[in-house]
C-alpha cells in the first residue's frame, strides 16, 4: 500500500511540475517578440522564465534520468558549472544580438537556459554550503559587474537595443544580483547555524 501511495503522489507531483513548466514556458512562446524587443525584458523576464520552466521540467524527469545526471554531478559541480557558463555567455552583447538574428543561436539560448533550470535544484541539493557559496557568489559579482558596465557604457552595446534599454537592463542585473545574494544568505545562514548547533 505504501508504495502505491508514493507512486500516486509522484504522478501528481509530475503533473503539477508539467503544469508549472507550461505556465512558465508559455509566455516565452506567446510573447517572444515583446519580451525580446527590449533588452531588460529579454534578460530579466525571459531568461528567468526559461530557468523556471526548466526547473519545473526537472521535477517531471523520471528518477532514473535524474540518477544518471547526478552520477556526473558530484557535489553539484557540473550543474553549477553549466549554469554559470550559461549565465555568463548570454550576457555578452554580441551573443545577445546573435540570439535575435540567428535561429540556431536562439535555439541554443532556449535550450541552455532550460537545461540550466533543470540542473539547478538537484545541484543545490547535492552541493555543500561552501560549493553553493562559491557559485552563487561568483554569479552575483559577475552579474553585478556586467550590470554596472551596461550602465556606464555610453555607446550602444547591442545593435538591436537602444542605450536606454541597456541602462535599464544594467540596473535590473544589479538588482537581480543583490536580490539573489540576499535570498541565498537568508537560506544559507540558518542552514549553517543548524549545522553547527
Amino acid at each position, binding site marked *: 500500500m505504501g508504495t502505491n501511495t508514493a507512486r500516486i503522489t509522484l504522478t501528481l507531483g509530475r503533473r503539477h511540475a508539467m503544469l508549472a513548466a507550461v505556465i512558465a514556458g508559455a509566455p516565452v512562446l506567446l510573447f517572444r517578440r515583446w519580451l525580446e524587443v527590449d533588452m531588460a525584458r529579454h534578460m530579466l523576464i525571459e531568461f528567468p522564465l526559461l530557468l523556471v520552466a526548466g526547473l519545473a521540467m526537472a521535477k517531471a524527469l523520471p528518477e532514473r534520468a535524474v540518477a544518471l545526471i547526478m552520477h556526473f554531478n558530484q557535489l553539484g559541480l557540473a550543474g553549477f558549472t553549466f549554469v554559470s557558463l550559461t549565465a555568463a555567455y548570454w550576457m555578452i552583447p554580441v551573443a545577445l544580438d546573435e540570439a535575435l538574428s540567428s535561429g540556431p543561436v536562439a535555439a541554443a539560448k532556449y535550450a541552455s537556459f532550460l537545461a540550466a533550470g533543470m540542473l539547478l535544484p538537484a545541484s543545490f541539493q*547535492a552541493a555543500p554550503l561552501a560549493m553553493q557559496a562559491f557559485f552563487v557568489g561568483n554569479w552575483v559579482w559577475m552579474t553585478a559587474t556586467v550590470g554596472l558596465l551596461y550602465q556606464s557604457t555610453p555607446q550602444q552595446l547591442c545593435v538591436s537595443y537602444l542605450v536606454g534599454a541597456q541602462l535599464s537592463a544594467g540596473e535590473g542585473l544589479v538588482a537581480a544580483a543583490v536580490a539573489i545574494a540576499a535570498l541565498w544568505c537568508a537560506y544559507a545562514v540558518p542552514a549553517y547555524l543548524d549545522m553547527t548547533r
Partner: protein
Amino acid sequence: MTGTPTAPAASWPGTVIASCAMIGIAAAALWSVTFGLRGWTAEAIRRLRVPADPPQLQALRLDTSTGTALVPWGRRETQPRIWLMTFMYTRCPTVCSVLGIEFERLQRQLTTDPRNAGIGLLSISFDPAHDDVQALQRYATAHHAEPDRWIVAVPDSRADLARVERQTGIVVIDDGFGGFAHNAAIHVVRADGRLVRIFDFNQPEAALAWARTQRESR
C-alpha cells in the same frame, strides 16, 4: 530529486570530465562569437570581420534624388567607382546630419584634389516609407550634394534594402520617438561590389585615404 538509497554512487571522474567538457564547449562558443576574443559587440566584430573576409554585395537597384535609377556596383555599364557608402534616413536629427556634414566636407576634397578621381560618395536611405525622391532631393540640396560626386538614394524595393542590410550587417531599430537607431559607419565598397573596410563615421579622412589605396591597387 533526493538521492534514493538505490541511486548509483556519484562519480568524481565523470563529474570532472563533464565539467571540463562544458567549459571546453563554452570556450569554443565564446571564441567563435567574439571573433577570437577580439570584440564583444556585434558592431566591433562586423568591422573586424569585413577586412578579414570582404563580403561580396549583390547588385543593388537604387532610386536617386535626381529621379534616375542607379546600380552602383557590379554592372559594366555604370562608371566604375570606389564608393564611400553610408546608411541614413533624411529625417534623422543626430548622427545622419553629422554624417551629412562630414560627406559635404569630403565632397569638397573630391572636387579639389585630383588624387580622388574615381571615388564617389553614396548615402543610402533605409526609410523608404518616408524617403521618396522629393525627400532625398531636400536632403541633397540641404547638404549641397553634387549628383556626379555624391549620390543620395533609396533602394527601389524592400527586398533590395533588406538584402544590402543583411550583407553589410546594418541593423535599424525603432528609437521610440518615431525615428531610428542604426549603426553609423562609412563603408568602402569597390566597383566590383566587395565591401572591403568599415570606418567609424567620425573617421572620413581615413576612409578616403583607404579608398585611394583600393583604387590604386586595381
